[in-house]
């Protein structure tokens, strides 16, 4: 049993939950994730570890309510318990001083990529962070990202904050300006990771993406998380979650992520009565 010690609602759909998991907190590195199963009837889902406090023995998870389990997780209060958490899973990010790193996050991806950006920042890289949202009110994690970057660029669809346009356009601009970029890290929705990889590929700029395929055990046992990378089948859970962005078959990943869409809709209806149970704890 893993006790929830803090909880925060970050937006209509994004939450941060802090859980006691001392062994994972001690061991986890940037880029890794945990598998969470809320209760006896629950499913196992992978969630990125967005931060950890080894001394307090806690890990924090930032998540968006998309499916049944994340919605259920959003209803759990401080003092409640999560039945099963296993990790840290996956390979950590290969952190070193690359030179100049551009870190691109979209929506929730900004929070999920935050520990990676932080580690690269601490490793001495010059970090340019790009965060994006539809409009100014949806820009998230701005202050957190400012602390771990040398330059922070914002892109909004309507131009209400920062640049008007997509984060890929900002990235293209940096390239066009002749900025020397040694590494691009992108964590976010599949279309964003695909678009970023498309921008960097002609320039052969090393690009790391963190994939989020469907998983069951996440220990390499089931193969649900198969992704094609460079024409070869890899397991997202044990070979990833990070891969060379130029090699990933994003189209296949998108299709595979929709495997259980019908079931999700059915479960969403089932979840409705619980939604009144939301309780938030403000920091």
């Amino acid at each position, binding site marked *: 049993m893993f006790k929830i010690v803090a909880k925060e609602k970050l937006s209509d759909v994004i939450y941060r939950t802090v859980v006691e998991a001392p*062994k994972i907190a001690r061991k986890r590195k940037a880029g890794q994730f945990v598998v969470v199963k809320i209760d006896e009837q629950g499913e196992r889902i992978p969630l990125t570890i967005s931060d950890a406090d080894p001394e307090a023995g806690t890990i924090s998870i930032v998540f968006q309510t998309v499916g049944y389990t994340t919605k259920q997780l959003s209803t759990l209060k401080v003092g409640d318990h999560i039945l099963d958490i296993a990790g840290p899973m996956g390979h950590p990010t290969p952190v070193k001083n690359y030179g100049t790193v551009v870190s691109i996050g979209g929506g929730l991806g900004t929070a999920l990529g935050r520990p990676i950006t932080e580690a690269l920042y601490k490793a001495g890289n010059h970090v340019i962070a790009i965060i994006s949202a539809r409009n100014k009110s949806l820009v998230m994690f701005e202050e957190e990202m400012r602390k771990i970057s040398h330059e922070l660029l914002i892109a909004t669809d309507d131009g209400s904050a920062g640049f008007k346009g997509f984060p890929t356009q900002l990235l293209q601009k940096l390239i066009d300006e002749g900025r020397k970029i040694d590494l691009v890290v992108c964590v976010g929705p599949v279309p964003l990771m695909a678009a970023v990889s498309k921008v960097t590929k002609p320039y052969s700029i090393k690009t790391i993406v963190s994939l989020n395929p469907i998983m*069951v*055990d996440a220990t390499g046992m089931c193969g649900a998380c198969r992704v094609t990378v460079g024409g070869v*089948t890899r397991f997202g859970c044990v070979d990833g979650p990070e891969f060379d962005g130029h090699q990933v078959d994003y189209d296949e990943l998108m299709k595979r992520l929709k495997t259980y869409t019908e079931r999700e809709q059915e479960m969403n209806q089932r979840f409705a009565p619980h939604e009144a149970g939301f309780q938030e704890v403000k920091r």
Partner: protein
Amino acid sequence: MKDPTMCKEGHNLKKQKAPRQRMPEQDHHQRIKNFSEVPQGYTPELARLEASRCLQCKKPLCRAGCPVGIDIPAFIKLIAEGDYAGSARKLKEYNSLPAVCGRVCPQEDQCEKVCIVAKKFTSVAVGNLERFAADYERTNGAISIPELPEPSGYKVAVVGSGPAGLSAAGELVKKGHEVVIFEALHKAGGVLVYGIPEFRLPKAIVESEIEYLKKLGVKIELNSVIGKMETVDELLGNGFDAVFVATGAGLPLFMGIPGENLCGVYSANEYLTRVNLMKAYDNGHVTPILKKKRIAVIGGGNVAMDAARTALRMGTEEVYIVYRRSRTEMPARIEEVKHGEEEGLQFHLLTNPVRILGDEKGWVKALECTKMELGEPDASGRRRPVPVPNSEFLLDVDCVIIAIGTSAHPLIPMTTPGVKVNPKGNIIADEKNGQTTQEGVFAGGDIVTGAATVILAMGAGKQAAQAIDEYVRKKRPARTPAGSRRL
């Protein structure tokens, strides 16, 4: 003069006391609608009748045919005498999981294959009797906790809670050691809970075996991925005197044919894990599973049969077994094939899948196969299947389950530099005692042998426990842990 009706031991093989007693089975029309066990077990009457067929050979061949050398005539004799609990105790001297092995051991290739009675009639139903004795003990509350020695002061970590890990833990705790099993999943039992379906091995039986170990004092740490949360070397540095690695052969193999990553293609491990471990068949559980109309299961082993029969129970209209050799080469147990056939599995033998075809949304719509014929024997001694020219055809399916085998789980070798593996990725360990290339680290079961049987893994666990006991006692003088009670 040699009398052909007398065997070497002088048993008269001309007369048979009774025919081999069949276990009552759930009707196949009924059973494909539920996940309850197919064979229902012997009644005490049937068990005694069957036990009376054993000739009590002085040099029992069955015993030599058993990978863990169970004193088979002795436990059968106790059943014949009506001492069922005594029979179960006798079994447990050799085998810590008799209720499991009585169900899933390939007896027809082991003890029963060499039974003297089979020379003339059909062999004594050793497996059925083993199951009876173990079930009797469990369901009648006759399980006794053996007297345990004083705590030895040694501490052993067991990585993995499948058959090898459970049997090693049981043996080690009985020698007085403090034993902690680390299990990566949220439930203990390994392949017994994620792989083998409920209708072949009820999970309540596995749970009861695990409860028994806990009563003996074995601690089980769930959600503990060794290699990630803690490494083997860290365990050794954190107070464990030895580590037994029993992480199995859980990595699913794929064929490498086009279309394998389409939606609707499962590994058998994934399909079975969703149903068995995650209980996707029950709507009260959250884990989803695709419910398709026509499923092709590729492979001819027990796992293929398990997946296919599970698919039938999930309401699949047509379930095909696609296997590239013929029926005689099928590695699955005859009983499983027979049960599957009764339940309506359709066999496409001498059929090799070459491509999975998908629709524009990325879903399986057909399986392209080639007809095969048997050629010369290959390295395994089985006749090699060769494609029949121009025999390609399409099998109309909307889901494919790949059950062509599994390989060693790589996590421990990857994170334990001192532990060496062979080219197949299996840990190199001494056949007799499980010693790996690193001091203090032992290994056994499928992680060493590659995918094999429950009984072999169990036997390896038991042998390693013996070696670990000797190792820790030699390594440093015993000390009684603080706070432990001297009796």
